[in-house]
């Protein structure tokens, strides 16, 4: 996933309900199924479509140190063969009805997503259950997938932003899996064995710790019954899910330069940050918006609008389940790097040094609170939001709490957290270019 896309995912959680006077309808109904899986259902009957998103505690954060990329490979292989169908048969079955069934591992979780017309829901759920419960990890499919992942990793070397992000990861999260590449490395993926995949699946694709989100033209009893029917016998293994350690809250900043023959230099600054369960998160969200969130932000204004130094410049927090990072990024022509980086660092420092203008505070609050409905305006977006809120343990009332907390942020609070979390001296940096 690109960094921008991941930033988008992070922003998803920094959202809340618009219209402070109206009472918020519950986003979804939540229940815990007998096997421990959480079911969240949002009924949207207006179009004959259904999205089912299953999240499992099987993300790259659970990769063994000597098996980077195992979570990603395991997720990729779910749709490559089950006890009943080969990979191509699965592809054909779902695509024949114009649907899709995809499995991917992210940093925290593996996600299996079914998108299907209502009339084909039964077929879709059959395939989804097979993929979750009875993947066979055929050896030939595994060889194919490993070669594909290795080729994708090589291709990503073409992208300076990806190179920068891969380099920065271990500087922000030294010794923690968050610092490692989600898909592993060409070398690590080449060493993965089928036994590792089978064992990883057995331990991590478990109902306790899983959540299932259903959005669309379904009712809660209907989807509940359909799922229970197909997931009977899916119970938690006796072995406990291994705990994931928290990353260090502070690290010593360091710098890296990666030389590439490019006309631009990609600059990526980063440090550990805080999650939504930290009270400082809300003033930090406001400060972030003022610094580098929108087109009126200080970075956008000074670096792009006034000086023409970059097409893309932004700052943002990326909260995860076990920790968070904060990134500031820009791309500029080689001979402007020094000036652009100086401007960026100066604006970061100024956030903590001076109070923001009341107008800046108002803009940030209005945007963060008011843009919430835009983040839930399709079934797919709503499913991702519900899943993310559940995974992070934020609770279905998170939007309301968020709105309330953002609304209470003061200029002083924003300045205080900016001094604490946006001090440029605490950021590691990576530059990719000449």
């Amino acid at each position, binding site marked *: 996933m690109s960094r921008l896309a991941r930033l988008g995912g992070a922003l998803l959680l920094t959202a809340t309900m618009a*219209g402070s006077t109206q009472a918020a309808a519950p986003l979804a109904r939540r229940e815990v199924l007998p096997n421990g899986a959480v079911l969240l259902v949002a009924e949207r009957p207006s179009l004959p479509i259904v999205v089912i998103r299953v999240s499992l505690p099987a993300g790259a954060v659970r990769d063994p140190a000597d098996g980077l990329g195992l979570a990603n490979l395991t997720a990729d292989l779910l749709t490559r063969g089950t006890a009943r169908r080969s990979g191509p048969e699965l592809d054909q079955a779902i695509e*024949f009805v114009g649907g899709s069934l995809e499995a991917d591992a992210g940093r925290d979780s593996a996600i299996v997503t079914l998108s299907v017309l209502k009339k084909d829901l039964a077929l879709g759920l059959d395939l989804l259950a097979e993929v979750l419960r009875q993947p066979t990890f055929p050896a030939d499919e595994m060889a194919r997938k490993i070669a594909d992942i290795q080729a994708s990793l*090589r291709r990503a*070397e073409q992208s300076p932003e990806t190179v920068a992000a891969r380099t920065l990861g271990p500087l922000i999260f030294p010794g923690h899996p968050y610092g490692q590449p989600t898909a592993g490395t060409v070398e690590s993926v080449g060493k993965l064995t089928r036994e590792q995949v089978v064992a990883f699946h057995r331990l991590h694709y478990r109902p306790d710790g899983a959540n299932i989100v259903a959005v669309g033209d379904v009712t809660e009893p209907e989807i509940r019954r359909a799922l229970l029917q197909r997931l009977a016998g899916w119970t938690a293994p006796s072995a406990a899910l291994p705990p994931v350690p928290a990353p260090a809250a502070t690290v010593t900043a360091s710098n890296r330069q990666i030389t590439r023959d490019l006309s*631009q230099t990609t600059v990526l600054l980063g440090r550990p940050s805080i999650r939504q369960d930290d009270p400082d998160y809300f003033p930090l969200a406001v400060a972030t918006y003022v610094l580098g969130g929108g087109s009126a932000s200080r970075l956008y204004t000074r670096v792009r609008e006034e000086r*023409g130094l970059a*097409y*893309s410049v932004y700052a943002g927090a990326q909260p995860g389940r076990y920790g968070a990072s904060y990134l500031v990024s820009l791309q500029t022509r080689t001979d402007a790097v020094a000036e652009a980086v100086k401007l960026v660092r100066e604006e970061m420092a100024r956030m903590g040094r001076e109070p923001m203008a009341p107008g800046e505070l108002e803009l940030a609050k209005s945007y963060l609170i008011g843009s919430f409905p835009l983040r839930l305006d399709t079934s797919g977006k709503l499913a991702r939001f519900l899943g993310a809120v559940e995974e992070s343990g934020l609770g279905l009332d998170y939007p309301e709490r968020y709105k309330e907390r953002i609304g209470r942020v003061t200029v002083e609070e924003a300045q205080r957290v900016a001094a604490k979390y946006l001090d440029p001296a605490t950021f590691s940096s990576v530059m990719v270019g000449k």
Partner: protein
Amino acid sequence: MVGMLQSRALSLSALLLSLALVGSASAQAVTSGPARFPVTEATLDNGLRVLIQEDPRNPIVAVQIFYRVGSRNELPGATGLAHFLEHMMFKGTPTHGRGEISRLIELNGGRDNAFTTKDMTGYHVSIAADRLDLVLGLEADRMRNLLLAPAEIDSERKVVMEERRTRIDDDPEGVVYEAMSSIAFLAHPYRWPIIGWMSDIARINPGELRAFYDTYYRPNNAILVIAGDVKAPAALAQVRRHFGPIPRGATPAPVTALEPDQSDERRVIVRKEAAQLPVVNIAWHVPNFRSEDAPALELLSTLLSEGRASRLYRHLVYDKRMALGAGGEYSYSSLDPTLFWFFATLLPGQSPESVEQALLAEVEQLKKEPVPAEELTRARNQIEASFVWEQDSVFTRASVLGRFEMLGSWRMLDDFLPKVRAVTAADLQRVAQRYFPLDRKNVSILLPAEPATAAAR
């Protein structure tokens, strides 16, 4: 593919719009299907076309204005004007200074962005539905009152140059895409990149931007689409109030360039040190939506590319293990005829020659044997399902309505699915035979730079 350019990096997926030809808001929705999203249409006295689609499911509205101007309206020596001007649309009017339009939209909880394609320039805002009036006021203001201050132009020029470096110069696949267009088109403006050549971006002067703006940013050259939680009569009244006073402009001159029939084979090889995996593209000139053959070409592209069961994925990626990805891309709604692309990104160790031959063998197969019924039905079902899915988003529905209106009328959406359903295996075979001649193809290949040692040998 560099099908469109967005004004800001933090933006919605460009892909969404570039693939929007398999649109939403289908004929089904408007005529026979669910009547819940009807379209109200109007043309103001000044020529502004207005489409309003009511959809009360979410308390939001998508407001999109499309100008009938893109890189096809430019001339050599001043390429990139349309896109440059799009950037300037955020740089202020006498009423709303630089950045003020976006700031007001964000202050009201909305998001805005813009894009330029070869055919058009679009501005879109998504916002709480009760803020429609604000957005209409802002769009009406910048339709005619842009400042185009020389200092702002020079500052934004640098931003556009950075954008070109990011998207094309430092992206090997961007370079090879640009190279293909420049060999396949000799006479038509589709020859140059949407963002323009670097030397033109560096040179374009305020007078040219002003003249371009005055020519194309007129109500009679624009389509305004509103989709969301609004009432059409009230929304139309607001549109009239904001846009009604703007005078009609002269009708812009049509683009007259016609690409001559290709009678030769053309090849270009791009070597980039940064390239990790070679890419092979093969493209042929094909007709656009105006042709009876367009639905067959559309279906063919779906059948070749959509999903892991699609033909090129199945054969080149899965069975032969030659490519990491492969497909066939067609632009149904291109205003002028453009290219049908076959493409493959190679797996390490594969030779471009053998992958080119494999792609050509697929083309020959399409000519020789009718596509099996299962494949044809799957592609049809995929297109039909995508129509339903795209109705889920007011943003997508607004952009598809605008796109089809650009072609002549949003009502052409009514015909799209029936035409796709009517395509037969024989049609697919016939269009492959007609449009993909082996001796008149365009080939572009991306290769990693020759190792220094090899050159020294």
